[in-house]
């Protein structure tokens, strides 16, 4: 467990900013408790200071997980977000997509979101923007990246992909062992 280096922080924030933009500030600077990001076995954990201090007494090999896993660094140095961070990024998301009940299951099985399944979209979502996917009952289901901007979506046929799948809560079952 160690703090992120400057380069790591940069790649991590760049990815995170695609979803919540400037709202990362609220993660860093919280009113209730001091939280920090810590790297452990290539994974970035969002953890309170108290828990982090306690975790220092656990050996590196023995420590499995701490706090909330936000994602991991790939071997090529890119950052990949895990669905475990959904609660935090859903809270501060700038752009959202709501999908109809008939589209929920395909998305939760790891498929992209097609136009026919979309119920509602945040206005003026640009292309390749990170979005949070909600069910129509406002339950966050996962997140993805828009394939087209909102205005371009209107001209598309119903089977066209609108949101590329990134992570969904079905992964809690599918990737149980590697997620945290």
């Amino acid at each position: 467990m160690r703090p992120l280096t400057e380069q790591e922080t940069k790649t991590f924030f760049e990815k995170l900013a695609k979803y919540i933009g400037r709202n990362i500030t609220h993660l860093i600077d919280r009113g209730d408790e001091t939280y920090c990001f810590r790297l452990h076995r290539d994974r970035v954990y969002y953890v309170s200071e108290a828990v982090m201090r306690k975790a220092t007494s656990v050996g590196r090999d023995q420590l499995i997980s701490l706090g909330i896993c936000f994602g991991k660094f790939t071997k090529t140095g890119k950052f990949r977000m895990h669905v475990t961070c959904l609660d935090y990024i859903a809270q501060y998301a700038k752009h959202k997509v709501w999908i109809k009940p008939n589209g929920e299951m395909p998305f939760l099985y790891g498929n992209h979101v097609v136009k026919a399944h979309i119920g509602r979209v945040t206005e003026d979502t640009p292309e390749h923007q990170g979005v949070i996917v909600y069910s129509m009952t406002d339950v966050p289901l996962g997140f993805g990246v828009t394939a087209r901007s909102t205005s371009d979506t209107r001209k598309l046929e119903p089977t066209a992909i609108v949101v590329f799948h990134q992570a969904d809560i079905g992964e809690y079952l599918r990737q149980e062992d590697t997620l945290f």
Partner: protein
Amino acid sequence: MDVSGVLEAHKQKFKSVTVEGKIIPVEYDLGLLAAYDQNPVDEGELNKNKDEYLQSLSRDNAQLLFNEIFQLPTISDDNGVMAMLPTPTTLLPREKPLPKPKPETRWEKFAKAKGIVKRKKERMVFDETSGEYKPRWGYKAINDDGTKDWLIEVPAGANPMDDQYEARREAKKERIDRNEKRHQRNMEEAAVASKLDRKTVNKGERPNMDNARAMKRKELESQILITKNSTASVGKFDKAIEGDLKPRGIKRQFAPTITDLSKEKAGNMNILDKIVGKNGEDLVNVRKAIKATKRQ
């Protein structure tokens, strides 16, 4: 006139020149004007009155030393009578440590293994042509490796127009150069070996030349890495060459896990400012603003 009484009185003023009560005879090294008294000190006497006892002891021993000196053969001189001191017998310890043996050169090692013994040759050799002795080698040598022959046969298969003197001079020069290189190599190996010696002295290992070569290589590699980084950007923006040396054994440095979190937070904020600013995320959504104004 009887002066014996006067003499006796005079004598009484001085202590006796004979010293008694030495169980072990005192040893002398008259060359160093030294006497060694091996007799144990009388402890009761010493504790009673220390100064007096030590004074009397040293006086007695000094007396014994003077007695010995007066038995030496003397010579008379303008300056007076002088005793002839013998050569000192006491061995003094060496002031400096023994010089270390010189590290063996490659040839010396080879010769030792093969049992080749160096035979001494005279420096001066009789030159029949001039009829006098000349040095075997060096300045004004007798025949400088065949370069002073008055006639050289053209070797079989050689170009008759070639200068054979020139060829011999060249050959000699080459030999000298090669020897110079060997000398250089021996020096380097010796330097490394002495360095290894200091390292392995506690382990009782003998430095070997494979080690020496490896060490030399390591040294060179580190030097290359230093020169690579000696650019204006400290090597950051230099093009990487394929198959180039990679720095080994350089550990990455990370910030400590537990630090002042407010400082870490400030650093994170700084990075965030840079990123969000770069992405062009503005406070005003321009498209939305245009739409809103159009509606009005």
